[in-house]
């Protein structure tokens, strides 16, 4: 009960000011670690201010004081009851070589699911083209893929001028941004209980399978590998990882076998989803460069063997990176990873 408002505010003001000062400092310096006495002081100030708020809530004449105290208590509440790790300085190298592959491995089942869906799409697209080649315009509604593979290869190998001359950087950047948008979309569709993500992965698989079978049937396997492998061995896994992130969202939404609440389940995976999608972005930047500056050049400019070997080396490095990078002795024992 507040009888003397003036005395109440005069008595509380030093505590409120001190709490506000500490909160400002905590918010401005995220890496700040308080000592035990500082923590005790902070907790005491929070409890004192919360008690003052409880008193002033019943008072009609002090809406400003109430709003001020509500704001202070809300900020302090967030700091005190927050159990998630506090943001720290960001180390890009450590993030890329440790956090990203560790996160990938932690949710590798979702990745396998993503691969399985894409492979199912590949099988469907490949079989559809094999049994009904006339279905090409339906399966691949992109004009540059509708051409006869043998004719295209002949044209590409005969080309005397660089058709990407003067636009290579733009082409490369357009590939990066487009593929990143598709990846984000694949991830975001996880919120449709995974239905949208599954459709995106399956459809990507259908196009990939259809193109592959189309070129193989035309006897252009070597060209196909030389064309797709340099960028595809990074780009396709990147889309698969985006699908993995989307499926993680979907699994958290569905919550099968988990007793945690929806909020808790989503909270648990949100950091990992962000790590994966940023990793996808990095991979797609690399794939965009390779596609514009290497994949589009064929024999006699670059021998297919060199392109295929380049793709194979990339694939091995990517596999090693995702499966081994960031593994400590502890994780190898299976304690953490």
């Amino acid at each position, binding site marked *: 009960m507040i009888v003397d*408002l003036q005395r109440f505010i005069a008595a509380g003001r030093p505590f409120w000011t001190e709490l506000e000062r500490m909160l400002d400092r905590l918010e401005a310096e995220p890496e700040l670690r308080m000592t035990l006495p500082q923590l005790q002081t902070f907790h005491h100030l929070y409890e004192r201010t*919360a008690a003052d708020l409880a008193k002033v809530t019943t008072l009609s004449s002090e809406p400003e004081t109430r709003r001020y105290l509500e704001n202070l208590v809300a900020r302090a509440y967030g700091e005190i009851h927050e159990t998630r790790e506090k943001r720290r300085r960001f180390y890009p190298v450590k993030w890329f070589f440790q956090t990203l592959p560790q996160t990938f491995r932690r949710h590798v089942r979702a990745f396998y699911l993503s691969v399985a869906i894409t492979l199912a799409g590949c099988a469907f697209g490949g079989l559809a083209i094999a049994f009904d080649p006339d279905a090409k315009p339906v399966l691949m509604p992109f004009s540059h893929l509708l051409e006869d593979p043998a004719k295209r290869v002949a044209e590409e190998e005969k080309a005397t001028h660089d058709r990407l001359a003067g636009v290579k*950087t733009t082409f490369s950047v357009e590939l990066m941004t487009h593929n990143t948008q598709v990846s984000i979309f694949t991830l975001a569709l996880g*919120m449709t209980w995974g239905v949208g993500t599954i459709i995106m992965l399956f459809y990507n698989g259908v196009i990939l399978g259809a193109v592959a079978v189309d070129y193989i049937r035309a006897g252009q396997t070597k060209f196909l590998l030389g064309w797709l492998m340099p960028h595809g061995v990074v780009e396709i896994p990147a889309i698969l990882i985006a699908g993995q992130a989307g499926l993680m969202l979907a699994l958290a939404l569905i919550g099968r076998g988990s007793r945690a609440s929806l909020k808790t389940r989503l*909270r648990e995976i949100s950091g990992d*989803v962000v790590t994966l999608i940023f990793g996808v972005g990095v991979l797609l930047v690399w794939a965009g460069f390779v596609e514009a500056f290497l994949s589009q050049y064929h024999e006699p400019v670059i021998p297919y063997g060199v392109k295929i070997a380049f793709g194979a080396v990339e694939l091995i490095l990517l596999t090693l990176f995702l499966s081994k990078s960031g593994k400590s002795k502890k994780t190898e024992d299976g304690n953490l990873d």
Partner: protein
Amino acid sequence: MKTSTLVIRTPEGIVFSQLLAGPVTRFFAWFIDQLCIGVAMSVLGIALRLLELISLDFGFALSVIVYFVVNIGYGIFFEWAWRGQTIGKKLLRLRVVDVEGMRLQFNQIVVRNLLRFVDSLPAFYFVGGLACWLNPRCQRLGDLAANTVVIRNPRVAEPDLDQLLAGKYNSLRQYPHLAARLRQRISPSEAGIALQALLRRGEFDPVARVELFGDLAAYFRAKVEFPAEVTEGVADEQYLRNVVDVLYRTRGEVPAPGGPLQ
């Protein structure tokens, strides 16, 4: 059930509530943000065109990157730098906060902004708007995934008490201890009723006005009994003015809490 407030109860038993922003207000904030992105792109476009003079390919490529980064990064950057606000949200006094009152994390901001891709389907945020409409906490899909809500801090219009109470002698102030007791016993909603009655007094039928102020004055007289010398001969409406004056105006007795503390 749909509610317009987010109520947070701390383990210490303290309850504080925040008003939730509806889909229409949020749409306007988004529209302002789009205008800001448009302006930023126009300004950057002029600079990038100069680069195209040096290298057309490099200039175009940089334009594509800048457009992509500004579009995707605008919300993430501002919500992180301004603790849950973009320019549009700031103008409309909206803020993104954690659904449980916790500290807003970078991951949450990224997730809610990336999921705009789904919320904006098929056009003009139809999916997000629908989700917001149906969700009890007005959350679009991005907010659901990120465990965030958008709250609003409306500017509370202060009643023009000077116009209402100007030049009137308030006999209740002769007894500061009773005035303090009055402040203590009257709840915020009761004070609000008295204030509204005075502010809207011109709208009442004369007979109804006399009856209403009679009832209200009797109610407030019963709350705290002042000596007869300050209440006798005072009209009911004037008595209510004095009560509101005591409740809402401190006349410099108490330092304004917002001032030196902030």
